[in-house]
């Protein structure tokens, strides 16, 4: 009944003053770059050379070039594989599996496992990259030591597979926590009904659990896919190599912009990424709204 309007007596003027500094920063470093990249993408701006001082307006040339560019197509394809493998499948499945299995674990065990999974998430990306470089190294790497193999340079011979496993390891924590709370919200009485009827684990998941968490699966997948598609960490592991075999879109943009100095071109590609991000984010928010 009570309308909560300005309980602190701030007044609209002061409120706007409070909000402005934050909005200024956001406008400067988020909004402006997003819009400006459109403009840069329409020029032939480069880091060095004549086009760096006097770039000319080239219209949609960059976009057309991108569509023809084999490397761009390669980057898009690899990104799709990366997202599908490590996010849609990897983190989702492993996260759910962990949440499901740990439900009935002893609290101590659960805490220990969750701690390590979380640790993988919170360690800085540079450190994690080294950890996995160590694991995947041909000569001294942990994986080869365990397998008794000393001839496979995983990062060189199977770069995408390595990246997918790596990113699954890295990001599962988020999905695990999400599914943990989603599972906790499934009415225990329904789970117990399934048990008394004799349903096995798989059937219980399919018939009782999944209907409850269906919405969560979709929104979670969207979110982690968005994050994975924009993830720069592959650069730290393979730098896109060997020979562009693991050059996902973020790495591609970087190489074009800084290594090749093609600022206009990479801005155009960035813009395409922004559009995709926007579509995914809008879909995500729409689904969230609908669920609430």
């Amino acid at each position, binding site marked *: 009944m009570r309308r909560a*309007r*300005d*309980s*602190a*007596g*701030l*007044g*609209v003027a002061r*409120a706007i003053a*409070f*909000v402005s*500094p*934050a*909005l200024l*920063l*956001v406008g400067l*470093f*988020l*909004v*402006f*770059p997003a819009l*400006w*990249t459109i403009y*840069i993408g329409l020029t032939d701006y480069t880091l060095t050379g004549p086009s760096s001082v006097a770039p000319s307006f080239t219209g949609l040339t960059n976009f057309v070039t991108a569509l023809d560019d084999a490397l761009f197509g390669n980057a898009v394809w690899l990104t799709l594989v990366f997202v599908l493998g490590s996010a849609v499948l990897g983190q989702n499945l492993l996260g759910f599996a962990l949440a499901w*299995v*740990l439900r009935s674990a002893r609290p101590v065990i659960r805490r220990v*496992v969750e701690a*390590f999974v*979380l*640790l*993988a998430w*919170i*360690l*800085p*990306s*540079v*450190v*994690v990259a*080294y950890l996995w470089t*160590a*694991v995947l*190294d041909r000569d*001294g790497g*942990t994986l*080869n030591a365990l397998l008794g193999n000393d001839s496979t340079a995983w990062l060189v011979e199977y770069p995408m597979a390595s990246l997918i496993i790596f990113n699954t*390891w890295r990001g599962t924590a988020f999905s695990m926590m999400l599914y943990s709370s989603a599972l906790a919200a499934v009415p225990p009485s329904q789970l117990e009904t399934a048990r008394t009827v004799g349903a096995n684990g798989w059937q219980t998941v399919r018939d009782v659990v999944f209907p409850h968490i269906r919405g969560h699966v979709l929104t979670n997948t969207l979110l982690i896919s968005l994050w994975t598609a924009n*993830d*720069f960490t592959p650069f730290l592991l393979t730098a896109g190599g060997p020979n562009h075999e693991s050059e996902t879109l973020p790495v591609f*943009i*970087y190489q074009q*912009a*800084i290594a090749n100095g093609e*600022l206009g071109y990479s*801005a155009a590609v*960035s813009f395409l*990424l*922004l559009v995709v*991000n*926007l579509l995914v984010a*809008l879909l995500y928010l729409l689904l969230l709204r609908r669920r609430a």
Partner: protein
Amino acid sequence: MTFSLMLRRSLYTVLIAALLAFFAIPMLWLASAPFDSDPGVGLRWPDWTLDNWRITFEHPYALGSLVNSIVLCAVATIVTTALGTLASYALSRVRIPGRDALLYVLLLLSSVVTGTAAMVPIFVLMLQLGLINSQYATGLVIAGGMLPAAIFILKDFIDTVPRSYEESARVFGASPGQVLLHVVLPVARPGIATILVWAFVQAWGNFLLPFLLLRDVAEQPAAVLLRTLRDEGGSANLTVIPAFSLLYAIPVVALYLFVSKRYGFRFHGGIKA
């Protein structure tokens, strides 16, 4: 106990052990290599020594980069927390025209304009402003990226501070500044602390922006230096890298433990709910 039950139990145990191993094994390197006198890329029982640490500390850029990290993160954290708190307070309490649309847009922005998508225009912006190699500018850029999420989380927190606290203080004659300082901030402390730590951890681990914008080795924070250590001379400097990695990783882990231990509760003392 039937056989199938025992089988199930053992499979279950094996599964958990496998999962645990999957997550823990890569991390073990951090526990062994820094103390190994002949550190390899792989995992092995170390030949215990503290020499690596001495060499790390003597490395010309190692400690300096940690200081850079602290400065950079301090700037980003303080700016994010201060501006974010003010903004979320105003947004929580006052119905500014367009507030809901604004919140929606902020949410969108934070997900859409990622470091990767914005790296080119930000690089160009800083280049043209002559702010490459500036710690403070980079800190501000990082803060700008963190603000939308910070405002969201803080607004949620401040929404739960009962308005009667502020009204009460107001009736007692407190000015809006006094209300904020005496009443709102102390009660919202857990939320603010959470944002402080979250922002610091994000900034500490941020690789892309400092990598792009801080090209001079002397200005680079630990995140970037750690990578540079690998590239210089072509092969990895394995004496320094493990120790430095550990050093670099510890603050993050410590902060995370600290926050989850301390602020797992909510302040309900003064309101008869």
